[in-house]
């Protein structure tokens, strides 16, 4: 318990009483109670329907934007035409049979391609030279050249599917979010995997969501470890502090006031904990929001063991 009869507390209370302004207090009372009543009446009124639906509208908007983005990124796994052989006159028999893709051997680029110039600043091919194969880009060509699961030759077993994310042991202290099972069902393709292996825009969205969920869970876990480390340090639980540090707790993580685990161990006079934190890299000069560092606090507490701990001693 704090001591309300402490002479300092009493003197301060007397000082405030002496400076008290009853008129100002009465005025303040009337204003605050009126504001509270007015606010209560406002919040008791039913809110317009549009606001109640605001959350759903926002969610629908975000979903639509995500779908548009995914549809822009996604390209269906269409069978690629054979790459054009530049400057080689195509035999007439071959040209006639399969419907040739929008390629023109040794011919000027079609008007469609001319009306939409390529994004790159490459000059248009000279008439008579090798024409670009319509919108069939060189990247797509490279991708098409890579074997994919769908393009595996018959008789060979398909390549093993990438392991599902949910099957991997999670290092996070938190359970995976609801987005994670979706990711397990449709894992995002690896960076070097061809686009044709994607199963649809849903896979792209699920992949994005899974990535975000993992990052968020990871941030929360680190923050939680920091809070637990501060609590253990304040309570002087050496073994807990050691275990948390081994688990990856950020040693200099600060709370809302900027106080770190080291500061809390100093304030509570736990030199063993302070020494352990310093040995794990805690910064004794990091200031809190009051501008005080762990060294300042140790000076105030006045325990020589704390000074030794901050100096890296036993």
């Amino acid at each position: 318990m704090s001591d309300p009869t402490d002479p300092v507390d009493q003197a301060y209370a007397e000082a405030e009483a002496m400076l008290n302004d009853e008129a100002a207090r009465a005025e303040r009372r009337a204003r605050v109670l009126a504001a509270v009543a007015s606010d209560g009446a406002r919040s008791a009124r039913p809110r317009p329907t549009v606001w109640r639906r605001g959350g759903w509208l926002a969610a629908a908007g975000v979903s639509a934007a995500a779908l548009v983005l995914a549809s822009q990124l996604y390209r269906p796994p269409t069978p690629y035409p054979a790459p054009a052989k530049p400057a080689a006159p195509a035999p007439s028999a071959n040209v006639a049979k399969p419907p040739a893709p929008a390629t023109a051997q040794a011919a000027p680029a079609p008007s469609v391609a001319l009306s939409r110039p390529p994004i790159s600043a490459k000059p248009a091919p000279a008439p008579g030279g090798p024409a670009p194969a319509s919108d069939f880009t060189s990247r797509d060509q490279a991708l098409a050249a890579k074997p994919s699961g769908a393009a595996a030759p018959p008789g060979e077993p398909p390549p093993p599917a990438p392991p599902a994310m949910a099957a991997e042991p999670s290092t996070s202290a938190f359970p995976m979010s609801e987005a994670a099972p979706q990711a397990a069902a449709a894992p995002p393709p690896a960076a070097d995997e061809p686009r044709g292996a994607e199963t649809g825009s849903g896979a792209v969205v699920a992949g994005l969501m899974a990535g975000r969920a993992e990052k968020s869970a990871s941030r929360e876990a680190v923050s939680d470890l920091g809070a637990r480390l501060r609590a253990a340090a304040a309570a002087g639980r050496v073994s807990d502090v050691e275990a948390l540090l081994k688990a990856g707790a950020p040693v200099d993580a600060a709370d809302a006031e900027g106080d770190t685990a080291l500061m809390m161990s100093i304030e509570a006079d736990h030199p063993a904990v302070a020494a352990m934190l310093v040995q794990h890299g805690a910064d004794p000069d990091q200031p809190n929001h009051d501008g005080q560092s762990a060294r300042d606090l140790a000076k105030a507490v006045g325990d020589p063991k704390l000074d030794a701990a901050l100096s890296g001693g036993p």
Partner: protein
Amino acid sequence: MEADDDAALLSAHVAGDGQAFARLYDRYDRPCFLFIRRLLGRAHAEAAEDLHQETWIAIARNAAAFDPARASFRAWLFTVARHKVFDHFRRRKVTVLSGAADEAAALAAPDPAASPLDAVVSRDLAQRVVAAVEALPLEQRGALIMSAQGGLSLEEIAEATGVAVETAKSRLRYARAKLRALFAGERSVHV
């Protein structure tokens, strides 16, 4: 028990008793306002009235969610008030600095048996005591006001500030030691 009364008054307010909230306000108006005003210091004194009003509006709005089993009403009230002050500092991009006084020197100073702190006898001295309180580091200042004005226990101060009881205790101890050191030996002058 006062704490039970507080919770009962808040429940009555939630149930629609128009006078219950006013009674609760009257009980804690002064400590709450002084807490906000002194934490703000002179530089931000003009914001005290607004933050005090915002605090009580927040209390009224969230009264239904208050759980007396988790914390006392006054610990909750000072928690809300403290957040209002820190939000204000954050909006104004204020960096809260520690007081200039050396904490070690404050603790090393003798505890005067008789000092003006035993009895504040003049308005001038009262102003100096209050000014000395306003010069304390923010968290020490808050702990002292919660104890002296709000009558909060160490556990309640720790609850309101989100720290361990030991931390709250040391903050209170430093604050008192500094004030004692500042006013040591002044009794013969003023009394």
